[in-house]
């Protein structure tokens, strides 16, 4: 009898567990009506970071977390308009460029102060840029200044100063490039190129500047508790509009899911929406869930030097017609991505609609497959589709596999962890691979040149087209914006037609912010300018 | 059986059963006996005959479940121990009735000092202070002939030899000056020489402090010098109950008789010891009739049909055998 009771309890416990699960069906929180907007000065904003920043030294700002904090601490010559990503002056009053886009002259604003109270001058830019390029600094992001004349000599240790950077006077900075590159001015909006005060670097030591950062940005550094938080406070003497907030605390989370929980609990004022909850978040937070198209492309690459992709444009095109981007974006990604028929996303100046005519057309795909010599997939060896695990790439990969199976191909999936993934792709062991590309600057060049220029190290598809190479170089040396963009557009069309990649989706941000917050936006480079944010009077 | 003293304990129709899934184990099935002040009674039988259970039943120490005292009375100083509350019976245990167990190696708690363990009942039952209790404990250790008692008091059981431990157990059992001591095979686990010392000690204490002793053993040899009466048990029942001389020399039950002959004795020359064939029966499924009949060398037809009652074979000598009254003739006839 005792055992009878025991078994009954056992079964009951199991049933109960299942029952609870079944009964529960999305009884989301009641949506609270937003109060009448009224900006309030002050307050502490808890900003969510999804990893520990690698560094807060501008010379080491490389990943989104570091840059998010860096953007608040440091200002540069130029900035991107948060709404349009267009270039706008920051510390520069104005700039001029010569005919072939090799010399840039920046006129600086007067009275810009560092957080330590000293005025920032052109010399500080010279010092800071030299520091970034100095091999002793061991910057992994010095490449932002790679076009500057003297960069290579500096990196090789043959020079101690950048030949191409000169302070003509306190408020004039002249930059000479080693090759024509009209879009260089966009680089000066990147926080790596921000000025820092020499005396602070010398006082704390270059290595420790990371822990004692001083800049000209709207917020000052207070403290950094590793793996937990970075605290910044409002810089009262900011040269631009001072921030509304008293301070911003960057809270470090390792896991999106848990951050989201804390956001819902009110601990955080913004955070990423975890994958799989986009629709729910949109329903729950309405226009406080920000899905803004980003400066990046999610694609599957084909190694065009490897079988079966080699010399078989039709086969590659067939794939492009076989994938159902709309369903992928709408259903699998819950509308959190934009279907990509081109390479350059809509948030980039110069974006062209209909860069390719790849739509979901299984019949067309089958036709092309037959033309490629594999009618209904016959004769085509089994394909292995590679992706890196753990980043939410599993569902798109399975979906693409489903699409290609429908086309008649035999596809298996192979998940790799990121650490070995790039190696295997470059070694040519993975020839059909998932890849994403997020750019540093909102320029078309930054999509086309690194990915498809034949000598670029990031050209994973091994695409090599002399015509495209020439066009990209020409575009770089074209100072005229319209002409330049037209060249890029044409290059994009050619690349797409040759189909070394299957573009799938454009990234969108997936950020939510709290109900009592105003002025919060998400930019195409997935940042939120904190100086614009304020709390709303309850 | 010595009915000459003041009656201390009366056990009447004691039945202790264990309820297992295989069935009801009748470990003790209707046992009755008496014990006077200062008297020593030996309870004898093979392993599994119910003698230890009888002892545990007296102190109501049978684990429930699965065991249960089903019937019977244990009258100790006029009170039925089986009807006492938990609290009341605890006042009897260790206080009025002390008990020692077979294996001194395992009967002492290894993680407490000897002194701590002896002190415990003194403090609880006699309400002595810690210091007084310590004084008393040391006296007790001296009483049971443990040398350097003061030093030994602080030692742990594993630092004691087997014989020492049993002495310590006795000291502990006698710490509250009980009227009765139950000794459950107190010497079985010890060396032969130590055995004798322990039995001697028990005998001495019994005489000196007028202690009633219930001595449980499977070995009749060791009780010879101590016990006055003997209760022989088999398969949960009393099969013979008489004073020691009668059981030794004039047994009226074939089981007891065989037991006597299975013990080497100094005073008798025998060519070989008798062994009892077979093994004790299952207490769940007792053979019909006399439980001992399957192993009994003298069994007759009636033995496997009717259960023999416990009768007075001669005055003051109870036996549960169909042939109890004329056992001598009957038995000898077969053996010789």
């Amino acid at each position, binding site marked *: 009898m005792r055992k009878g009771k025991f078994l009954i309890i056992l079964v009951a416990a199991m049933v109960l567990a299942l029952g609870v699960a079944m009964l529960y069906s999305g009884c989301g929180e009641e949506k609270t009506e937003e109060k009448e907007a009224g900006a309030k000065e002050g307050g502490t904003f808890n900003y969510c970071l999804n990893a520990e920043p690698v560094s807060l030294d501008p010379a080491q700002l490389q990943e989104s977390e570091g840059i998010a904090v860096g953007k608040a601490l440091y200002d540069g010559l130029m900035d991107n308009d948060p709404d349009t990503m267009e270039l706008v002056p920051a510390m520069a009053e104005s700039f001029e460029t010569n005919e072939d886009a090799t010399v840039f002259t920046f006129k600086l604003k007067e009275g810009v102060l560092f957080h330590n109270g000293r005025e920032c001058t052109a010399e500080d830019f010279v010092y800071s840029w030299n520091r970034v390029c100095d091999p002793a600094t061991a910057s992994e992001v010095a490449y932002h200044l790679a076009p500057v004349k003297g960069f290579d000599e500096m990196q090789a240790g043959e020079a101690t100063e950048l030949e191409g950077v000169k302070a003509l006077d306190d408020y004039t900075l002249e930059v000479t490039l080693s090759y024509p590159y009209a879009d260089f001015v966009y680089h000066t909006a990147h926080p790596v190129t921000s000025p820092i005060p020499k005396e602070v670097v010398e006082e704390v030591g270059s290595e420790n500047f990371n822990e004692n950062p001083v800049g000209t940005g709207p917020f000052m550094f207070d403290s950094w508790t590793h793996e937990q938080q970075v605290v910044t406070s409002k810089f009262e003497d900011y040269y631009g509009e001072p921030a509304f907030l008293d301070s911003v605390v960057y809270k470090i989370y390792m896991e999106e899911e848990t*951050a989201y*929980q804390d956001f819902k609990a009110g601990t955080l004022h913004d955070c990423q929406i975890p994958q799989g909850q986009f629709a729910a978040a949109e329903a729950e937070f309405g226009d406080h869930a920000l899905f803004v198209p980003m400066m990046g492309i999610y694609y599957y690459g084909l190694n065009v030097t490897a079988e079966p992709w080699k010399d078989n444009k039709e086969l590659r095109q067939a794939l492009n017609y076989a994938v159902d981007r709309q369903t992928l974006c709408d259903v699998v990604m819950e509308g959190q991505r934009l279907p990509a028929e081109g390479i350059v996303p809509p948030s980039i100046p110069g974006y062209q609609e209909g860069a390719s005519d790849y739509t979901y057309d299984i019949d067309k795909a089958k036709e092309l497959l037959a033309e490629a010599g594999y009618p209904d997939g016959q004769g085509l060896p089994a394909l292995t589709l590679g992706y890196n695990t753990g980043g939410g790439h599993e569902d798109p990969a399975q979906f693409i596999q489903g699409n290609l199976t429908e086309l008649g191909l035999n596809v298996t999936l192979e998940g790799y962890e990121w650490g070995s993934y790039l190696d295997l792709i470059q070694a040519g062991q993975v020839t059909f691979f998932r890849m994403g590309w997020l750019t540093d600057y909102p320029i078309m060049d930054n999509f086309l040149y690194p990915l498809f220029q034949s000598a670029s190290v990031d050209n994973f598809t091994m695409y090599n087209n002399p015509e495209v190479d020439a066009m990209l170089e020409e575009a770089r040396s074209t100072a005229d914006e319209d002409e330049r963009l037209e060249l890029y557009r044409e290059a994009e069309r050619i690349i797409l037609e040759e189909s070394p990649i299957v573009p799938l989706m454009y990234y969108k941000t997936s950020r939510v912010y709290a109900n009592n917050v105003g002025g919060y936006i998400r930019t195409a480079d997935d940042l939120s300018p904190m100086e614009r944010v304020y709390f709303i009077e309850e | 059986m010595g009915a000459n003293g003041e009656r201390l304990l009366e056990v009447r129709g004691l039945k202790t059963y264990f309820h297992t899934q295989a069935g009801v184990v009748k470990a003790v099935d209707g046992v009755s006996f008496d014990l006077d002040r200062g008297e020593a009674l030996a309870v004898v039988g093979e392993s599994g005959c119910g003698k230890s259970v009888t002892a545990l039943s007296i102190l109501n120490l049978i684990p429930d479940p699965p065991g249960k005292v089903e019937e019977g009375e244990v009258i100790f100083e006029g009170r039925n121990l089986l009807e006492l509350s938990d609290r009341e019976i605890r006042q009897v245990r260790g206080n009025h009735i002390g008990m020692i167990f077979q294996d001194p190696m*395992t009967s002492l708690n290894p993680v407490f000092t000897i002194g701590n363990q002896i002190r415990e009942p003194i403090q609880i039952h006699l309400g002595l202070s810690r210091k007084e209790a310590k004084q008393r404990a040391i006296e007790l250790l001296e009483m049971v002939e443990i040398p350097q008692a003061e030093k030994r008091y602080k030692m742990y059981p594993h630092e004691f030899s087997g014989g020492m431990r049993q002495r310590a157990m006795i000291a502990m059992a006698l710490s509250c000056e009980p009227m009765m001591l139950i000794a459950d095979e107190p010497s079985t686990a010890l060396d032969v020489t130590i055995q004798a010392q322990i039995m001697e000690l028990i005998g001495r204490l019994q005489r000196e402090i007028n202690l009633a002793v219930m001595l449980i053993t499977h070995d009749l040899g060791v009780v010879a010098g101590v016990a006055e009466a003997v209760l022989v048990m088999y398969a949960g029942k009393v099969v013979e109950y008489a004073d020691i001389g009668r059981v030794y020399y004039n047994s009226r039950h074939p089981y007891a008789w065989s037991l006597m002959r299975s013990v080497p004795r100094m005073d008798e020359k025998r060519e070989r010891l008798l062994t009892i064939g077979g093994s004790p029966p299952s207490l769940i499924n007792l053979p019909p009739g006399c439980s001992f009949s399957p192993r009994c060398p003298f069994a007759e037809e009636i033995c496997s049909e009717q259960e023999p009652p416990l009768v007075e074979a001669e005055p003051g000598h109870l036996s549960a055998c169909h042939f109890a009254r004329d056992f001598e003739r009957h038995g000898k006839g077969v053996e010789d």
Partner: protein
Amino acid sequence: MLIFILRRLYQTVIVVIGVVLLLSFMMTIIPGDVAQMRAPKGATEEMLQNIREKFHLDKPFFSRFWIYLKGLPTFDLGDSFTYKRPVMDIIREGLPWSIKLAIVAEIIIIILGILAGVISSVSRYSFWDVLVTITTTILVAMPIYWIGRLLQLFFSQWLSWLPAAGAPPPGTAFFTGLKYYIMPAVALAAISTAYVARMQRSSMLEVMRQDYIQTARAKGLSNRRVTYKHGLKNGLIPVVTYIGIDFGVLIGAAVLTEIIFNWPGIGHKVYNAVLQRDHTMVIGTVFVLVLIFVFINLLVDISYAFLDPRIRLGGGQEVT
């Protein structure tokens, strides 16, 4: 006793060196070019070579191993490839969190595990016993990260009682801070609590049928005193040993818990370090973890001897 300790120490050293050797070797054969991962966009082969040199990656395996070994006695574990700071600094930041979490988990294990074990052994087959038995068995059978998620679902998502994750931010009051510990500690403690409860129960049952318990009862002690004085002290011996050794395990085994609960501890870091091919970080962290583990083992062995007087003087009994 001294010989016993010395022998254990010698074994400890062997184990630690063995772990470092094994790990160094495995990190070497892991596919993935560290330089490639560390290199910036558009890096040249020359730059890659510089990185390799910087991290000694160009040297043969044994010379690299030797470089490690030389640093170990002074806890010079090199610089992390990812964070570019001394590994020891990063460990110093993370380890206290891991230890604090392990301590809270250990408290839960001790209180709940022992309590549950004792309760179910005292009242066998009672409702509580059955409940404890079912719960413990199911807990052992549950993937720990699922336990974590369920806790978050119930206590954070549905009931909003506890913060979903993270460590208490600096300056949090003690009791508010404690709320951050509850869920990760419970998840971390779950399996061990179940083991301890099962162990405590059977150990108690084992003890409670020892002869000395019968002796104690025959002395007229109350059930409570018999159980909690005579029973528990004996019944605790194997459990305490387990709990002690488990403490070392808890510090190092919290990888999944720390990931799910965003705990800034060391397990989390070492997991990321493996994925980032941060050799120095992986080896350094595991070295420290193993050191803690074997050191705690050593302590447990020694303290075991003091808990059980039988071993205290006898000196022979080795606990494995």
